């Protein structure tokens, strides 16, 4: 028969004490702020497509782009969000978001290799549009800290999802599948551009 580690008894006893401590510190609105931030980046398919595309393209470009692009995007997206929160206007937000899907999708489709700096610039440029759109849409009264944390975590997770999907790049069929995914992102971008212009 399997014996339990003494540590597991200790952890179980600790868990029994947990509800008392947790209830004592209940604060309303905190979870709402975090969950609201967490759900905001996935509230629009145009954003989701672009963020996954960044991960896919990073995986296609290989090291070090695979981790530098997903670092650049959330940071510049946060910068764009900051501009939006501060009320600093950026022109053509919706068009910029749609074009980001088209450009990133096309780059994945043609499996474009380019200098790291140029790739970073492209990603950083489009991230500002996405961030600004989120920044101007934020509701007042949220817990700023937890909202921001949820927002950044979700963005990074979407990039991570793109990277994991992009790992198929090491196989021949995977390369083709990745290029196919690029065409889907591009088609999505064109659809959203149509919506933004009409």
């Amino acid at each position, binding site marked *: 028969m399997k014996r339990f580690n003494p540590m597991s008894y200790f952890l179980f006893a600790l868990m029994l004490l947990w509800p*008392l401590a947790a209830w004592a510190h209940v*604060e309303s609105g905190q979870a709402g702020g975090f969950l609201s931030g967490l759900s905001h980046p996935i509230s629009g398919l145009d954003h989701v497509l672009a963020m996954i595309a960044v991960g896919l393209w990073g995986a296609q470009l290989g090291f070090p782009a695979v981790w530098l692009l997903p670092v650049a995007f959330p940071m510049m997206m*946060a910068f764009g969000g*900051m501009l939006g929160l501060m009320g600093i206007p950026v022109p053509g937000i919706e068009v910029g978001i749609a074009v980001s899907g088209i450009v990133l999708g096309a780059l994945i489709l043609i499996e474009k290799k380019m200098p790291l700096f140029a790739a970073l610039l492209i990603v950083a440029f489009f991230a500002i549009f996405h961030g600004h759109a989120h920044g101007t849409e934020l509701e007042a009264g949220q817990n700023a*800290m937890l909202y921001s944390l949820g*927002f*950044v975590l979700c963005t990074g997770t979407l990039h991570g999802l793109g990277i994991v999907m992009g790992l198929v790049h090491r196989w021949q069929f995977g390369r083709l599948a990745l290029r196919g995914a690029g065409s889907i992102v591009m088609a999505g971008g064109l659809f959203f551009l149509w919506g933004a212009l009409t």
Partner: protein
Amino acid sequence: MAHLVTSGLGPFYDGALHLAISPDDLLGLLAITLLAGLCGARTGRLTIIFLPLAWFVAGLAGLNLPVTIDLPWLSILSFLVLGVLVAINPKLHPKAVASLAGLFGLIHGLFNGSALAAIGAGPLALTGIVVTVLVIALIISAFVVSLHTAWTRIAVRVAGSWVAAVGMLMFGWLVRGTG
């Protein structure tokens, strides 16, 4: 700290638990300990000495202050600076990182101490906070020091960039004034 609520376990645990559920303190603490871990074992050792010590000393000073100090922009600045440092992972001297940790501890200790004084809590609650700081700093920096494969250290640097991103968003919230 203004929302410190009794846990029923005594002031020491009130303080300890409060830090564990205070993201404002935790995020900066995470960043400075990630940085210390990335810079190596010696830096980690210095950090786990200077950080809680500075936090405690400044906390004691804060307990005697007649006003509550609340400077959100200073927390935001610490997220930005420490987050960027973790992300770019520059070669920093252990004493430089320990000094940064000490400065961070001084600032947050002062915040915590003055807020504790405002609600009538004493040194025991502060001790709870500082012991939690020590435990968290020890665990995180030791964990990061133990990471040797490239991708794990990259993951730490990505986490640093996320802390900086949170700092930028919070700056926007601060300017907008509705957070």
